[in-house]
């Protein structure tokens, strides 16, 4: 059934998916400043430039804080929801699922704009707080889905055994269920963090003076400069992502949940 032209389609698909990364990688070491192709010579100047540009360094720390805090909060609040959906059957469960998938249905850009109008312009809220709220909301669907998947893999009798042996539900959850969900939680954490860390649409309208996330500051850098600094930064980010995902995979085998 699988014929030769189908393999050709595979080659086309992968060159389209990965080709741009090869080009970014090459450009980040090239000596010419005007993005001409092919890159001439070899230099590490663009990498140095990344670390010397304070807008990138500052926004990296903001993105890091934002990614960690919103992922943790979306997990802490999303986990009980996943537990309720998996372990209990109740009449409103369909509605609950719809509400928690809503952040996927609404375009991120629209959501950022709505939050700017309502919280920042009308409610005078700090942009960092608003960014945190926006990122937490868009992570709920992922947290709930990944944690639900990992709960479904766990035999409910194990928990029932703990309860029948005298633990209450909360103790049973903390001592039996939680340790068994390590991989699922780690998967949700990595996925959530990467989603927040890369997000542009929600952050775009909420980035104000002094508070800009890394991808948004990359975008605004491109409005003024056309040099390979962005290529160097992108190369660093790809390495960062691969290391993060690989570490999570080695330690906990998270790929089964993604």
């Amino acid at each position, binding site marked *: *059934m*699988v014929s030769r032209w*189908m393999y050709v*389609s*595979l080659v*086309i*698909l992968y060159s*389209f*998916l990965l080709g*741009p*990364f090869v*080009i*970014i990688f090459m*450009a980040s070491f090239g000596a010419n400043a005007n*993005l*001409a*192709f*092919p890159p001439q010579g070899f230099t590490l100047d663009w990498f140095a430039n990344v670390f010397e540009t304070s807008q990138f360094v500052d926004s990296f720390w903001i993105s890091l804080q934002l990614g960690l805090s919103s992922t943790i909060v979306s997990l802490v*609040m999303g986990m009980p*929801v996943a537990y*309720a959906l998996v372990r*209990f059957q*109740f009449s409103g469960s369909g509605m*609950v699922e719809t*509400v928690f998938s*809503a952040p996927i*249905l*609404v*375009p991120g*850009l*629209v*959501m950022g*704009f*709505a*939050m700017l*109008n*309502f*919280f920042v*312009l009308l409610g005078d809220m700090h942009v960092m707080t608003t960014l945190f*709220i*926006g990122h*937490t*909301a868009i992570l*709920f669907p992922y947290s709930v889905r990944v944690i639900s998947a990992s709960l479904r893999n766990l035999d409910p009798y194990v928990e029932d055994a703990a309860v029948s042996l005298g633990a209450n539900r909360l103790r049973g959850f903390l001592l039996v269920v939680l340790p068994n969900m390590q991989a699922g939680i780690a998967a949700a954490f990595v996925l959530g963090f990467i989603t927040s860390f*890369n997000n*542009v*649409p929600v952050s*775009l*309208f909420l980035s104000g003076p002094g508070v800009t996330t890394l*991808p948004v500051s990359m*975008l605004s850098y*491109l409005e003024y400069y*056309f040099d390979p600094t*962005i290529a160097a*930064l992108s190369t660093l*980010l*790809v390495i960062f*992502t*691969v290391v993060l995902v690989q570490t999570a995979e080695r330690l906990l085998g998270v*790929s089964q949940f993604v």
Partner: protein
Amino acid sequence: MIRRHNQNRTIVLLVAPAFVFVLVFFILPLLFLLSQSVLPEDGGFTLTGYADFFESRVSRIVYQRTLKLGLIVTGICVLMSYPAAFVLARMPARRRSFLMLLVILPLMTNAVARTFAWLIILGQRGMINQTLLALELVERPVRFMYTETAIVLGLTQLFLPLMVLPLVSAMENIPDDVLEAARSLGANRLTTFLRIIVPLSSDGLVLGATLVFTGSVTAFVTPAILGGSRLLLMSTLLRQEAVILFDLHAASVVAVVMILTTLAVNLLLRVLRVQQV
């Protein structure tokens, strides 16, 4: 009965915090946005914002262009993914999981980085222009940037994984026996593909198409970098109305049209999926 009552209380306690969070911090701003689009600051309820949007030539062109490019991108993604997904789904598990990782990896890199590559490929002194000049096919560099082609290429690269992933997982579930039965009963490759593989993977196709289309019509980074203000899409129009023209009323209309478009597509494709079952 007491147990029942206790259980309901437990469920409420489990769900309430996150539920309230989404309601207050997510649904409420959207309702405010909706009210903004029909209640301008200096007056009562009116639909003139929407009338203006659909009567203005500029915004109508932008809306049509957005939908058109969304359809083209979805079409290209389907064509590129279908045969490749089939090969992937039939592969030994080890090799497949490595190749699938390579599909997922681009999804984990931010859109600015992924779109930047197209500047190097399509720019005035980019890869394509240098090749064309070297082969003496053109005398002067061709302008690829700020064209619909550039946006289509960028969006396709961005959303291709969202088509491949659901297609592969749908095709994995097609048993080999079915394909062998089709062949032994005399079906040729094309017939097998059209009458067995396509219907059995339609769930993945519909899901992938929904993700790619809604992603394309709402994406911001790619049209911002590759289209700029010369070639606006809905997302870049929204940004222009809000940040440069500071017309929040007009911007909120654009935003609501964007939500309604994505909701309509989701609903439509959900109906399609139900009918097939």
